[in-house]
Protein backbone atom coordinates (compact mmCIF):
# COMPACT_ATOMS: atom_id res chain seq x y z
CA UNK A 1 0.00 0.00 0.00
CA UNK A 2 2.74 2.38 0.97
CA UNK A 3 4.21 2.09 -2.51
CA UNK A 4 0.86 3.36 -3.79
CA UNK A 5 0.56 6.43 -1.63
CA UNK A 6 4.10 7.67 -2.13
CA UNK A 7 3.82 8.55 -5.84
CA UNK A 8 0.47 10.26 -5.17
CA UNK A 9 2.08 12.58 -2.65
CA UNK A 10 4.91 13.19 -5.04
CA UNK A 11 2.53 14.29 -7.75
CA UNK A 12 0.60 16.76 -5.64
CA UNK A 13 3.31 19.32 -4.95
CA UNK A 14 4.13 20.27 -8.54
CA UNK A 15 0.42 20.64 -9.15
CA UNK A 16 0.05 22.99 -6.21
CA UNK A 17 3.16 24.86 -7.21
CA UNK A 18 1.90 25.34 -10.75
CA UNK A 19 -1.78 25.96 -10.19
CA UNK A 20 -1.63 27.35 -6.64
CA UNK A 21 -0.51 30.94 -7.27
CA UNK A 22 -2.90 31.32 -10.19
CA UNK A 23 -5.76 29.91 -8.14
CA UNK A 24 -4.99 32.19 -5.21
CA UNK A 25 -4.81 35.15 -7.60
CA UNK A 26 -8.09 34.23 -9.29
CA UNK A 27 -9.87 33.68 -5.97
CA UNK A 28 -8.59 36.97 -4.55
CA UNK A 29 -9.13 39.16 -7.56
CA UNK A 30 -11.91 37.51 -9.53
CA UNK A 31 -14.05 35.21 -7.40
CA UNK A 32 -14.20 37.27 -4.20
CA UNK A 33 -14.90 40.60 -5.98
CA UNK A 34 -17.60 38.91 -8.08
CA UNK A 35 -19.21 37.39 -4.99
CA UNK A 36 -19.02 40.81 -3.36
CA UNK A 37 -20.80 42.39 -6.32
CA UNK A 38 -23.53 39.75 -6.07
CA UNK A 39 -23.74 40.32 -2.29
CA UNK A 40 -24.06 44.11 -2.68
CA UNK A 41 -26.76 43.67 -5.32
CA UNK A 42 -29.00 42.11 -2.65
CA UNK A 43 -28.48 44.95 -0.15
CA UNK A 44 -30.45 48.17 0.30
CA UNK A 45 -29.50 51.74 -0.51
CA UNK A 46 -29.09 54.31 2.28
CA UNK A 47 -30.16 57.94 2.02
CA UNK A 48 -26.55 59.00 1.48
CA UNK A 49 -26.13 56.49 -1.28
CA UNK A 50 -24.30 54.29 1.19
CA UNK A 51 -24.94 50.55 1.28
CA UNK A 52 -27.29 49.44 4.04
CA UNK A 53 -26.66 45.82 4.95
CA UNK A 54 -30.26 44.64 4.87
CA UNK A 55 -31.44 41.99 2.46
CA UNK A 56 -33.49 43.41 -0.39
CA UNK A 57 -34.41 42.36 -3.91
CA UNK A 58 -35.44 45.90 -4.81
CA UNK A 59 -32.54 46.36 -7.22
CA UNK A 60 -33.59 43.31 -9.21
CA UNK A 61 -37.21 44.39 -9.34
CA UNK A 62 -36.00 47.78 -10.57
CA UNK A 63 -34.04 46.29 -13.46
CA UNK A 64 -37.13 44.37 -14.59
CA UNK A 65 -38.32 47.79 -15.73
CA UNK A 66 -38.43 47.60 -19.55
CA UNK A 67 -36.31 50.76 -19.74
CA UNK A 68 -33.24 48.85 -18.61
CA UNK A 69 -33.88 46.10 -21.12
CA UNK A 70 -34.07 48.74 -23.81
CA UNK A 71 -30.71 50.11 -22.71
CA UNK A 72 -29.22 46.61 -22.71
CA UNK A 73 -30.66 45.93 -26.16
CA UNK A 74 -29.26 49.24 -27.39
CA UNK A 75 -25.85 48.34 -25.94
CA UNK A 76 -25.95 44.86 -27.49
CA UNK A 77 -26.84 46.38 -30.83
CA UNK A 78 -24.02 48.95 -30.65
CA UNK A 79 -21.51 46.31 -29.50
CA UNK A 80 -22.69 43.97 -32.27
CA UNK A 81 -22.40 46.66 -34.91
CA UNK A 82 -18.93 47.62 -33.63
CA UNK A 83 -17.85 43.97 -33.80
CA UNK A 84 -19.18 43.42 -37.32
CA UNK A 85 -17.54 46.61 -38.60
CA UNK A 86 -14.27 45.77 -36.84
CA UNK A 87 -14.31 42.37 -38.57
CA UNK A 88 -15.14 43.84 -41.96
CA UNK A 89 -12.35 46.41 -41.67
CA UNK A 90 -9.98 44.24 -39.67
CA UNK A 91 -10.01 41.03 -41.71
CA UNK A 92 -8.77 42.49 -45.02
CA UNK A 93 -6.30 44.59 -43.06
CA UNK A 94 -4.99 41.54 -41.17
CA UNK A 95 -4.85 39.62 -44.45
CA UNK A 96 -2.79 42.32 -46.15
CA UNK A 97 -0.37 42.54 -43.21
CA UNK A 98 0.02 38.76 -43.04
CA UNK A 99 0.91 38.54 -46.73
CA UNK A 100 3.61 41.24 -46.45
CA UNK A 101 7.28 40.42 -45.78
CA UNK A 102 8.03 40.09 -42.07
CA UNK A 103 9.70 43.49 -41.63
CA UNK A 104 6.92 45.38 -43.42
CA UNK A 105 4.31 43.46 -41.40
CA UNK A 106 6.05 44.40 -38.17
CA UNK A 107 6.02 48.06 -39.20
CA UNK A 108 2.32 47.93 -40.07
CA UNK A 109 1.46 46.31 -36.71
CA UNK A 110 3.45 49.04 -34.99
CA UNK A 111 1.51 51.69 -36.91
CA UNK A 112 -1.72 50.05 -35.76
CA UNK A 113 -0.56 50.12 -32.16
CA UNK A 114 0.96 53.62 -32.07
CA UNK A 115 -2.31 55.41 -31.22
CA UNK A 116 -2.58 53.11 -28.20
CA UNK A 117 0.57 54.55 -26.72
CA UNK A 118 -1.52 57.58 -25.80
CA UNK A 119 -4.18 57.52 -23.12
CA UNK A 120 -7.59 56.60 -24.51
CA UNK A 121 -9.17 59.77 -23.09
CA UNK A 122 -6.62 61.83 -25.03
CA UNK A 123 -7.57 59.99 -28.19
CA UNK A 124 -11.26 60.61 -27.56
CA UNK A 125 -10.59 64.28 -26.90
CA UNK A 126 -8.71 64.55 -30.17
CA UNK A 127 -11.78 63.21 -31.97
CA UNK A 128 -13.81 65.97 -30.36
CA UNK A 129 -11.26 68.63 -31.34
CA UNK A 130 -11.08 67.36 -34.92
CA UNK A 131 -14.80 67.18 -35.48
CA UNK A 132 -16.17 70.06 -33.40
CA UNK A 133 -18.08 72.83 -35.16
CA UNK A 134 -15.02 75.09 -35.43
CA UNK A 135 -12.61 72.17 -35.83
CA UNK A 136 -10.27 71.43 -38.78
CA UNK A 137 -12.66 69.01 -40.52
CA UNK A 138 -15.57 71.46 -40.50
CA UNK A 139 -13.29 74.38 -41.41
CA UNK A 140 -12.01 72.45 -44.40
CA UNK A 141 -15.52 71.52 -45.55
CA UNK A 142 -16.80 75.08 -45.21
CA UNK A 143 -13.72 76.77 -46.70
CA UNK A 144 -13.70 74.53 -49.75
CA UNK A 145 -17.38 75.16 -50.26
CA UNK A 146 -18.35 71.49 -49.89
CA UNK A 147 -20.94 72.47 -47.30
CA UNK A 148 -22.56 75.84 -46.50
CA UNK A 149 -22.46 75.63 -42.74
CA UNK A 150 -20.60 73.38 -40.31
CA UNK A 151 -21.98 69.88 -39.78
CA UNK A 152 -22.71 68.70 -36.21
CA UNK A 153 -20.49 65.64 -36.05
CA UNK A 154 -19.92 65.51 -32.34
CA UNK A 155 -22.34 64.23 -29.72
CA UNK A 156 -23.98 61.90 -32.22
CA UNK A 157 -24.50 58.13 -32.29
CA UNK A 158 -22.34 57.94 -35.41
CA UNK A 159 -19.30 59.49 -33.75
CA UNK A 160 -19.77 57.16 -30.77
CA UNK A 161 -19.67 54.22 -33.23
CA UNK A 162 -16.52 55.56 -34.90
CA UNK A 163 -14.95 55.99 -31.46
CA UNK A 164 -15.82 52.42 -30.51
CA UNK A 165 -14.41 51.03 -33.76
CA UNK A 166 -11.11 52.90 -33.47
CA UNK A 167 -10.79 51.74 -29.87
CA UNK A 168 -11.49 48.10 -30.68
CA UNK A 169 -9.88 47.60 -34.09
CA UNK A 170 -6.46 46.34 -32.89
CA UNK A 171 -8.18 43.71 -30.73
CA UNK A 172 -9.84 42.42 -33.88
CA UNK A 173 -6.82 42.67 -36.17
CA UNK A 174 -4.19 40.99 -33.97
CA UNK A 175 -5.84 37.58 -33.39
CA UNK A 176 -6.92 37.40 -37.04
CA UNK A 177 -3.42 38.33 -38.16
CA UNK A 178 -1.92 35.54 -36.09
CA UNK A 179 -4.13 32.87 -37.70
CA UNK A 180 -3.86 34.23 -41.22
CA UNK A 181 -0.09 34.37 -40.88
CA UNK A 182 -0.01 30.64 -40.10
CA UNK A 183 -1.99 29.84 -43.22
CA UNK A 184 0.21 27.63 -45.44
CA UNK A 185 0.70 29.17 -48.86
CA UNK A 186 0.96 25.66 -50.30
CA UNK A 187 -2.69 25.03 -49.41
CA UNK A 188 -3.79 27.98 -51.48
CA UNK A 189 -1.57 26.80 -54.33
CA UNK A 190 -3.00 23.30 -54.07
CA UNK A 191 -6.50 24.72 -54.18
CA UNK A 192 -5.64 26.72 -57.28
CA UNK A 193 -3.98 23.68 -58.88
CA UNK A 194 -7.16 21.72 -58.33
CA UNK A 195 -9.07 24.32 -60.29
CA UNK A 196 -10.62 26.48 -57.59
CA UNK A 197 -10.97 30.15 -58.39
CA UNK A 198 -9.75 32.69 -55.78
CA UNK A 199 -13.27 33.12 -54.41
CA UNK A 200 -13.76 29.40 -53.84
CA UNK A 201 -10.30 29.16 -52.30
CA UNK A 202 -11.13 31.98 -49.93
CA UNK A 203 -14.50 30.55 -48.91
CA UNK A 204 -13.44 26.93 -48.59
CA UNK A 205 -9.81 27.16 -47.46
CA UNK A 206 -8.82 30.55 -46.06
CA UNK A 207 -11.97 31.38 -44.15
CA UNK A 208 -12.45 28.00 -42.39
CA UNK A 209 -8.80 27.81 -41.38
CA UNK A 210 -8.79 31.35 -39.99
CA UNK A 211 -12.11 30.91 -38.15
CA UNK A 212 -10.45 30.59 -34.72
CA UNK A 213 -8.89 34.03 -35.17
CA UNK A 214 -12.24 35.48 -36.20
CA UNK A 215 -13.92 33.97 -33.13
CA UNK A 216 -11.28 35.43 -30.84
CA UNK A 217 -11.69 38.78 -32.56
CA UNK A 218 -15.44 38.64 -31.93
CA UNK A 219 -15.01 37.90 -28.23
CA UNK A 220 -12.24 40.46 -27.81
CA UNK A 221 -14.21 43.28 -29.41
CA UNK A 222 -17.78 42.46 -28.46
CA UNK A 223 -17.38 42.06 -24.69
CA UNK A 224 -15.31 45.22 -24.03
CA UNK A 225 -17.55 47.33 -26.27
CA UNK A 226 -20.57 46.12 -24.31
CA UNK A 227 -19.27 47.55 -21.05
CA UNK A 228 -17.24 50.55 -22.23
CA UNK A 229 -18.55 53.91 -21.03
CA UNK A 230 -15.84 56.49 -21.68
CA UNK A 231 -16.50 56.60 -25.43
CA UNK A 232 -20.22 57.21 -24.99
CA UNK A 233 -19.61 59.67 -22.16
CA UNK A 234 -17.19 61.80 -24.14
CA UNK A 235 -18.25 61.48 -27.76
CA UNK A 236 -21.96 61.13 -26.98
CA UNK A 237 -21.98 64.15 -24.66
CA UNK A 238 -23.50 62.15 -21.80
CA UNK A 239 -26.73 61.80 -23.77
CA UNK A 240 -26.04 58.51 -25.52
CA UNK A 241 -26.17 56.01 -22.68
CA UNK A 242 -25.18 52.36 -22.80
CA UNK A 243 -25.40 49.87 -19.98
CA UNK A 244 -21.81 50.71 -18.94
CA UNK A 245 -22.80 54.37 -18.43
CA UNK A 246 -25.85 53.41 -16.39
CA UNK A 247 -23.70 51.20 -14.14
CA UNK A 248 -21.05 53.90 -13.80
CA UNK A 249 -23.70 56.47 -12.85
CA UNK A 250 -25.00 54.24 -10.05
CA UNK A 251 -21.56 54.26 -8.46
CA UNK A 252 -21.10 57.96 -9.21
CA UNK A 253 -23.68 60.67 -9.47
CA UNK A 254 -26.81 58.62 -8.73
CA UNK A 255 -25.24 56.72 -5.86
CA UNK A 256 -27.25 53.56 -5.85
CA UNK A 257 -24.62 50.88 -5.40
CA UNK A 258 -27.03 47.94 -5.04
CA UNK A 259 -28.69 48.83 -8.35
CA UNK A 260 -25.27 49.28 -9.98
CA UNK A 261 -24.24 45.87 -8.64
CA UNK A 262 -27.46 44.25 -9.87
CA UNK A 263 -26.94 45.74 -13.33
CA UNK A 264 -23.34 44.48 -13.27
CA UNK A 265 -24.61 41.00 -12.40
CA UNK A 266 -27.02 41.24 -15.32
CA UNK A 267 -24.18 42.27 -17.63
CA UNK A 268 -22.02 39.40 -16.33
CA UNK A 269 -24.86 36.94 -16.96
CA UNK A 270 -25.40 38.27 -20.50
CA UNK A 271 -21.65 38.06 -21.19
CA UNK A 272 -21.39 34.53 -19.79
CA UNK A 273 -24.37 33.46 -21.82
CA UNK A 274 -22.67 34.75 -24.95
CA UNK A 275 -19.45 32.95 -24.09
CA UNK A 276 -21.46 29.78 -23.41
CA UNK A 277 -23.12 30.01 -26.81
CA UNK A 278 -19.73 30.66 -28.32
CA UNK A 279 -18.13 27.62 -26.68
CA UNK A 280 -21.02 25.44 -27.93
CA UNK A 281 -20.54 26.84 -31.38
CA UNK A 282 -16.76 26.74 -31.52
CA UNK A 283 -14.40 24.54 -29.59
CA UNK A 284 -12.80 26.43 -26.71
CA UNK A 285 -9.33 25.23 -27.85
CA UNK A 286 -9.87 27.18 -31.02
CA UNK A 287 -9.76 30.44 -29.14
CA UNK A 288 -6.50 31.89 -30.10
CA UNK A 289 -5.50 34.99 -28.27
CA UNK A 290 -2.26 36.71 -29.15
Amino acid at each position, binding site marked *: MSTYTAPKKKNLLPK*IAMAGPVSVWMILFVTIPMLYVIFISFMSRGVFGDVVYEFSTESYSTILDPTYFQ*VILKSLKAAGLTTVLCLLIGYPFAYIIARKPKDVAAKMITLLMIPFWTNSLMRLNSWLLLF*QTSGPVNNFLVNTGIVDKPISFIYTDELVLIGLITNMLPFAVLPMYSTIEKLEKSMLEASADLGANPRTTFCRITLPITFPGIFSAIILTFIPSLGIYTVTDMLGG*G*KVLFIGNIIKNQFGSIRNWPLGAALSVLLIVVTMLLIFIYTRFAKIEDMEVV
Partner: protein
Amino acid sequence: MKKLLAMLLVGVMTLSLAACGGSTDADTATDDTSAEASTELNIYMWQQYISDDLIAAFEEENNCTVNLSYMSDNADAINKLTAGGGDEYDLIMTCDAYMESLIAGGYVEEINLDNVPNSANINDAYWVSKGYCVPYLMNYIYVVYDSETCPIEITGYNDLIDPALKGQISTIDGARNLFPMALVALGYDPNSTNEEEIAAAYEWLVKFNENVAAYGNAEQNLTNGTVSVAVTYDGNASWAMAEKDTIKIADFTDDAIQLGMDLYVIPTGAKHVDLAEKFLNYICDPEVMAKNLDEFPYSCPNDAAVAAASETYQNDPARQFDYKENVFFQEDVGDAITIYNDYYQKLKVGE
Protein backbone atom coordinates in the same frame (compact mmCIF):
# COMPACT_ATOMS: atom_id res chain seq x y z
CA MET B 1 14.07 18.55 -2.42
CA LYS B 2 10.33 18.38 -1.69
CA LYS B 3 10.84 20.21 1.58
CA LEU B 4 12.97 22.81 -0.08
CA LEU B 5 10.32 23.43 -2.73
CA ALA B 6 7.56 23.62 -0.13
CA MET B 7 9.53 26.09 1.96
CA LEU B 8 10.26 28.14 -1.10
CA LEU B 9 6.57 28.23 -1.97
CA VAL B 10 5.57 29.22 1.56
CA GLY B 11 8.28 31.87 1.46
CA VAL B 12 7.00 33.32 -1.80
CA MET B 13 3.40 33.37 -0.56
CA THR B 14 4.35 35.04 2.71
CA LEU B 15 6.36 37.63 0.83
CA SER B 16 3.48 38.42 -1.51
CA LEU B 17 1.13 38.74 1.46
CA ALA B 18 3.58 41.04 3.17
CA ALA B 19 3.67 43.13 0.00
CA CYS B 20 -0.11 43.42 0.13
CA GLY B 21 0.04 44.76 3.64
CA GLY B 22 2.82 47.19 2.79
CA SER B 23 0.68 50.26 2.53
CA THR B 24 -0.78 49.74 6.00
CA ASP B 25 2.71 49.74 7.47
CA ALA B 26 3.46 52.99 5.69
CA ASP B 27 0.25 54.52 7.06
CA THR B 28 1.20 53.63 10.60
CA ALA B 29 4.57 55.22 10.05
CA THR B 30 2.95 58.54 9.07
CA ASP B 31 0.66 58.23 12.09
CA ASP B 32 3.63 58.27 14.38
CA THR B 33 5.07 61.40 12.86
CA SER B 34 1.70 63.18 12.91
CA ALA B 35 1.89 63.27 16.70
CA GLU B 36 4.58 65.94 16.29
CA ALA B 37 3.94 67.96 13.13
CA SER B 38 2.45 66.53 9.98
CA THR B 39 4.52 66.59 6.84
CA GLU B 40 1.84 65.29 4.55
CA LEU B 41 -1.56 66.69 3.62
CA ASN B 42 -4.06 64.77 1.52
CA ILE B 43 -6.77 66.80 -0.17
CA TYR B 44 -9.69 65.60 -2.25
CA MET B 45 -11.28 68.30 -4.38
CA TRP B 46 -12.30 69.45 -7.86
CA GLN B 47 -9.67 69.52 -10.56
CA GLN B 48 -8.64 72.87 -12.06
CA TYR B 49 -9.83 74.67 -8.97
CA ILE B 50 -6.74 75.76 -7.07
CA SER B 51 -3.51 77.38 -8.22
CA ASP B 52 -0.48 75.06 -8.38
CA ASP B 53 1.79 77.96 -7.35
CA LEU B 54 -0.29 78.43 -4.23
CA ILE B 55 0.12 74.76 -3.30
CA ALA B 56 3.85 74.86 -4.00
CA ALA B 57 4.28 77.92 -1.80
CA PHE B 58 2.37 76.23 1.02
CA GLU B 59 4.56 73.13 0.72
CA GLU B 60 7.70 75.23 0.95
CA GLU B 61 6.43 77.31 3.85
CA ASN B 62 5.46 74.29 5.91
CA ASN B 63 8.07 71.84 4.68
CA CYS B 64 5.40 69.34 3.73
CA THR B 65 3.94 67.48 0.77
CA VAL B 66 0.42 68.20 -0.43
CA ASN B 67 -1.22 65.34 -2.30
CA LEU B 68 -4.19 66.43 -4.38
CA SER B 69 -6.72 63.89 -5.60
CA TYR B 70 -9.59 64.92 -7.79
CA MET B 71 -13.29 64.19 -7.84
CA SER B 72 -15.45 64.16 -10.92
CA ASP B 73 -18.76 64.62 -9.18
CA ASN B 74 -20.06 65.96 -5.87
CA ALA B 75 -21.27 62.44 -5.22
CA ASP B 76 -17.67 61.19 -5.22
CA ALA B 77 -16.88 63.43 -2.27
CA ILE B 78 -19.94 62.21 -0.40
CA ASN B 79 -18.91 58.62 -1.13
CA LYS B 80 -15.48 59.34 0.34
CA LEU B 81 -16.89 61.11 3.39
CA THR B 82 -19.42 58.41 4.23
CA ALA B 83 -16.96 55.58 3.62
CA GLY B 84 -14.39 56.65 6.21
CA GLY B 85 -12.71 59.43 4.24
CA GLY B 86 -10.49 60.30 7.21
CA ASP B 87 -8.39 57.21 6.53
CA GLU B 88 -7.25 58.62 3.23
CA TYR B 89 -7.80 62.37 3.32
CA ASP B 90 -7.33 65.34 5.62
CA LEU B 91 -9.51 67.76 3.68
CA ILE B 92 -12.42 66.98 1.40
CA MET B 93 -14.28 69.49 -0.70
CA THR B 94 -18.04 69.30 -0.66
CA CYS B 95 -20.90 71.76 -1.01
CA ASP B 96 -23.33 73.50 1.31
CA ALA B 97 -26.25 71.33 0.22
CA TYR B 98 -24.92 68.30 2.09
CA MET B 99 -23.62 69.92 5.26
CA GLU B 100 -26.59 69.29 7.57
CA SER B 101 -26.69 65.58 6.83
CA LEU B 102 -22.91 65.26 7.01
CA ILE B 103 -22.85 66.83 10.47
CA ALA B 104 -25.84 64.76 11.62
CA GLY B 105 -24.17 61.59 10.38
CA GLY B 106 -20.93 62.43 12.19
CA TYR B 107 -18.93 62.29 8.98
CA VAL B 108 -17.07 65.58 9.51
CA GLU B 109 -14.88 66.88 12.34
CA GLU B 110 -15.57 70.13 14.11
CA ILE B 111 -12.96 72.70 13.07
CA ASN B 112 -11.26 74.77 15.73
CA LEU B 113 -11.55 78.21 14.11
CA ASP B 114 -9.06 79.65 16.63
CA ASN B 115 -6.47 77.83 14.56
CA VAL B 116 -7.85 79.41 11.38
CA PRO B 117 -7.77 83.14 12.30
CA ASN B 118 -7.90 84.25 8.64
CA SER B 119 -11.36 82.72 8.37
CA ALA B 120 -12.61 85.98 9.90
CA ASN B 121 -12.31 87.38 6.34
CA ILE B 122 -15.17 85.21 5.18
CA ASN B 123 -18.54 86.89 4.90
CA ASP B 124 -20.85 85.27 7.45
CA ALA B 125 -23.80 85.59 5.08
CA TYR B 126 -22.29 82.84 2.96
CA TRP B 127 -21.15 80.61 5.78
CA VAL B 128 -23.43 77.68 6.42
CA SER B 129 -22.64 75.24 9.21
CA LYS B 130 -19.94 77.49 10.65
CA GLY B 131 -17.53 75.52 12.76
CA TYR B 132 -17.67 72.43 10.56
CA CYS B 133 -16.43 73.81 7.27
CA VAL B 134 -14.47 76.64 5.68
CA PRO B 135 -16.00 78.11 2.48
CA TYR B 136 -13.62 78.22 -0.48
CA LEU B 137 -15.26 79.60 -3.62
CA MET B 138 -18.84 80.20 -4.73
CA ASN B 139 -20.51 79.30 -7.95
CA TYR B 140 -23.42 81.07 -9.49
CA ILE B 141 -25.02 78.91 -12.11
CA TYR B 142 -25.48 81.18 -15.08
CA VAL B 143 -27.23 80.73 -18.38
CA VAL B 144 -24.91 82.22 -20.99
CA TYR B 145 -25.48 82.44 -24.71
CA ASP B 146 -23.80 83.50 -27.89
CA SER B 147 -25.74 86.59 -28.97
CA GLU B 148 -24.74 85.97 -32.61
CA THR B 149 -25.97 82.42 -32.94
CA CYS B 150 -28.67 81.97 -30.30
CA PRO B 151 -32.03 81.95 -32.14
CA ILE B 152 -34.12 83.34 -29.26
CA GLU B 153 -33.84 85.81 -26.43
CA ILE B 154 -33.42 84.14 -23.05
CA THR B 155 -35.03 85.88 -20.09
CA GLY B 156 -35.84 82.92 -17.87
CA TYR B 157 -35.48 79.18 -17.45
CA ASN B 158 -38.65 78.47 -19.44
CA ASP B 159 -36.93 79.77 -22.58
CA LEU B 160 -34.57 76.81 -22.31
CA ILE B 161 -37.36 74.41 -23.25
CA ASP B 162 -38.25 76.40 -26.38
CA PRO B 163 -38.12 73.94 -29.32
CA ALA B 164 -36.12 76.58 -31.24
CA LEU B 165 -33.15 75.62 -29.05
CA LYS B 166 -33.15 71.94 -30.05
CA GLY B 167 -29.60 70.61 -29.81
CA GLN B 168 -28.38 74.09 -28.87
CA ILE B 169 -27.70 73.71 -25.15
CA SER B 170 -24.71 72.36 -23.30
CA THR B 171 -25.09 72.14 -19.55
CA ILE B 172 -23.51 71.11 -16.30
CA ASP B 173 -24.85 67.83 -15.02
CA GLY B 174 -26.12 66.46 -11.71
CA ALA B 175 -29.54 66.05 -10.12
CA ARG B 176 -29.12 68.91 -7.68
CA ASN B 177 -28.03 71.30 -10.43
CA LEU B 178 -30.72 70.48 -12.96
CA PHE B 179 -33.85 70.01 -10.83
CA PRO B 180 -33.75 73.41 -9.08
CA MET B 181 -33.83 75.15 -12.49
CA ALA B 182 -36.97 73.22 -13.39
CA LEU B 183 -38.54 73.84 -9.99
CA VAL B 184 -37.91 77.60 -10.25
CA ALA B 185 -39.27 77.62 -13.80
CA LEU B 186 -42.45 75.96 -12.54
CA GLY B 187 -42.72 78.38 -9.63
CA TYR B 188 -41.91 75.85 -6.91
CA ASP B 189 -39.38 75.92 -4.11
CA PRO B 190 -35.98 75.09 -5.68
CA ASN B 191 -35.26 72.82 -2.71
CA SER B 192 -38.65 71.13 -2.77
CA THR B 193 -39.10 67.82 -1.01
CA ASN B 194 -42.57 67.29 -2.43
CA GLU B 195 -42.59 64.32 -4.81
CA GLU B 196 -45.35 65.73 -7.02
CA GLU B 197 -43.35 68.90 -7.57
CA ILE B 198 -40.19 66.93 -8.28
CA ALA B 199 -42.15 64.77 -10.75
CA ALA B 200 -43.39 67.92 -12.49
CA ALA B 201 -39.80 69.18 -12.60
CA TYR B 202 -38.82 65.86 -14.19
CA GLU B 203 -41.40 66.41 -16.95
CA TRP B 204 -39.93 69.89 -17.52
CA LEU B 205 -36.44 68.43 -17.70
CA VAL B 206 -37.52 65.86 -20.28
CA LYS B 207 -38.32 68.78 -22.60
CA PHE B 208 -35.07 70.49 -21.59
CA ASN B 209 -33.16 67.27 -22.32
CA GLU B 210 -34.43 67.36 -25.91
CA ASN B 211 -32.67 70.68 -26.37
CA VAL B 212 -29.44 69.53 -24.75
CA ALA B 213 -26.62 68.57 -27.10
CA ALA B 214 -24.19 67.61 -24.36
CA TYR B 215 -23.81 67.37 -20.61
CA GLY B 216 -20.44 68.67 -19.48
CA ASN B 217 -17.80 70.85 -21.22
CA ALA B 218 -20.52 73.52 -21.44
CA GLU B 219 -18.27 76.56 -21.88
CA GLN B 220 -15.99 74.86 -24.45
CA ASN B 221 -19.01 73.78 -26.46
CA LEU B 222 -20.25 77.36 -26.40
CA THR B 223 -16.96 78.97 -27.42
CA ASN B 224 -16.24 76.47 -30.19
CA GLY B 225 -19.68 76.99 -31.67
CA THR B 226 -21.10 73.53 -31.06
CA VAL B 227 -23.99 75.05 -29.10
CA SER B 228 -25.35 78.55 -28.66
CA VAL B 229 -26.44 78.31 -25.01
CA ALA B 230 -24.55 77.05 -21.98
CA VAL B 231 -25.64 76.48 -18.40
CA THR B 232 -22.46 76.77 -16.41
CA TYR B 233 -20.69 78.11 -13.33
CA ASP B 234 -19.69 81.76 -13.16
CA GLY B 235 -15.94 81.08 -13.36
CA ASN B 236 -16.43 79.05 -16.51
CA ALA B 237 -18.73 81.77 -17.87
CA SER B 238 -15.87 84.25 -17.28
CA TRP B 239 -13.51 82.15 -19.39
CA ALA B 240 -16.08 81.81 -22.18
CA MET B 241 -16.78 85.57 -22.21
CA ALA B 242 -13.05 86.37 -22.26
CA GLU B 243 -12.64 84.02 -25.21
CA LYS B 244 -15.51 85.32 -27.33
CA ASP B 245 -17.05 88.75 -26.86
CA THR B 246 -20.43 87.84 -28.34
CA ILE B 247 -21.10 85.62 -25.33
CA LYS B 248 -23.49 87.21 -22.82
CA ILE B 249 -25.09 86.28 -19.55
CA ALA B 250 -28.84 85.82 -19.99
CA ASP B 251 -30.73 88.75 -18.51
CA PHE B 252 -33.29 87.01 -16.31
CA THR B 253 -36.40 89.02 -15.55
CA ASP B 254 -37.78 87.08 -12.57
CA ASP B 255 -36.14 83.70 -12.10
CA ALA B 256 -33.66 83.37 -9.27
CA ILE B 257 -30.29 81.84 -10.03
CA GLN B 258 -28.54 79.19 -8.01
CA LEU B 259 -25.63 79.97 -5.77
CA GLY B 260 -23.59 77.04 -4.57
CA MET B 261 -20.71 77.11 -2.14
CA ASP B 262 -17.71 74.82 -2.34
CA LEU B 263 -16.19 74.31 1.05
CA TYR B 264 -13.56 72.26 2.79
CA VAL B 265 -14.40 69.86 5.58
CA ILE B 266 -12.13 67.72 7.70
CA PRO B 267 -13.40 64.14 7.45
CA THR B 268 -13.89 62.26 10.72
CA GLY B 269 -10.68 60.51 11.74
CA ALA B 270 -8.39 62.65 9.54
CA LYS B 271 -4.76 62.03 10.43
CA HIS B 272 -3.17 65.42 9.76
CA VAL B 273 -5.62 67.87 11.31
CA ASP B 274 -2.88 70.34 12.35
CA LEU B 275 -1.67 70.75 8.80
CA ALA B 276 -5.24 70.81 7.45
CA GLU B 277 -6.00 73.79 9.72
CA LYS B 278 -2.80 75.53 8.62
CA PHE B 279 -3.86 75.03 5.01
CA LEU B 280 -7.34 76.44 5.66
CA ASN B 281 -5.82 79.47 7.33
CA TYR B 282 -3.43 79.87 4.39
CA ILE B 283 -6.16 79.89 1.72
CA CYS B 284 -8.22 82.38 3.76
CA ASP B 285 -5.30 84.82 3.62
CA PRO B 286 -6.52 87.73 1.42
CA GLU B 287 -3.29 87.97 -0.62
CA VAL B 288 -3.09 84.26 -1.24
CA MET B 289 -6.73 83.98 -2.26
CA ALA B 290 -6.50 87.12 -4.42
CA LYS B 291 -3.74 85.45 -6.48
CA ASN B 292 -5.82 82.31 -6.73
CA LEU B 293 -8.77 84.34 -8.04
CA ASP B 294 -6.66 85.62 -10.94
CA GLU B 295 -6.21 82.06 -12.09
CA PHE B 296 -9.65 80.79 -11.11
CA PRO B 297 -12.05 83.72 -11.46
CA TYR B 298 -14.97 82.35 -9.49
CA SER B 299 -17.01 84.36 -7.01
CA CYS B 300 -15.45 84.36 -3.59
CA PRO B 301 -16.97 84.61 -0.09
CA ASN B 302 -13.72 86.05 1.27
CA ASP B 303 -14.44 89.81 1.23
CA ALA B 304 -10.86 90.85 2.01
CA ALA B 305 -9.58 88.70 -0.84
CA VAL B 306 -12.07 90.18 -3.29
CA ALA B 307 -10.95 93.67 -2.20
CA ALA B 308 -7.32 92.66 -2.79
CA ALA B 309 -8.04 90.98 -6.12
CA SER B 310 -6.84 92.35 -9.46
CA GLU B 311 -8.86 94.85 -11.47
CA THR B 312 -9.46 92.27 -14.15
CA TYR B 313 -11.20 90.10 -11.60
CA GLN B 314 -13.19 92.94 -10.09
CA ASN B 315 -14.33 94.29 -13.48
CA ASP B 316 -15.23 90.88 -14.87
CA PRO B 317 -18.79 90.98 -16.25
CA ALA B 318 -19.47 87.68 -14.51
CA ARG B 319 -18.89 89.51 -11.21
CA GLN B 320 -21.21 92.42 -12.05
CA PHE B 321 -24.38 90.58 -12.71
CA ASP B 322 -27.36 92.60 -11.43
CA TYR B 323 -29.34 89.51 -10.60
CA LYS B 324 -26.76 88.35 -8.11
CA GLU B 325 -29.18 89.58 -5.48
CA ASN B 326 -31.90 87.25 -6.69
CA VAL B 327 -30.31 83.96 -5.73
CA PHE B 328 -31.25 80.74 -4.01
CA PHE B 329 -29.02 78.29 -2.22
CA GLN B 330 -28.98 74.54 -2.57
CA GLU B 331 -30.27 73.26 0.73
CA ASP B 332 -29.97 69.84 2.25
CA VAL B 333 -33.11 68.00 1.17
CA GLY B 334 -32.52 65.03 3.48
CA ASP B 335 -34.26 61.79 2.48
CA ALA B 336 -35.84 63.45 -0.56
CA ILE B 337 -32.45 63.17 -2.28
CA THR B 338 -33.43 59.60 -3.24
CA ILE B 339 -36.55 60.96 -5.00
CA TYR B 340 -34.33 63.39 -6.90
CA ASN B 341 -31.87 60.64 -7.76
CA ASP B 342 -34.61 58.28 -8.97
CA TYR B 343 -36.09 60.90 -11.28
CA TYR B 344 -32.62 61.94 -12.43
CA GLN B 345 -31.93 58.29 -13.27
CA LYS B 346 -35.19 58.13 -15.21
CA LEU B 347 -34.25 61.30 -17.07
CA LYS B 348 -30.86 59.87 -17.99
CA VAL B 349 -32.05 56.45 -19.05
CA GLY B 350 -34.85 58.02 -21.07
CA GLU B 351 -38.18 56.39 -21.64
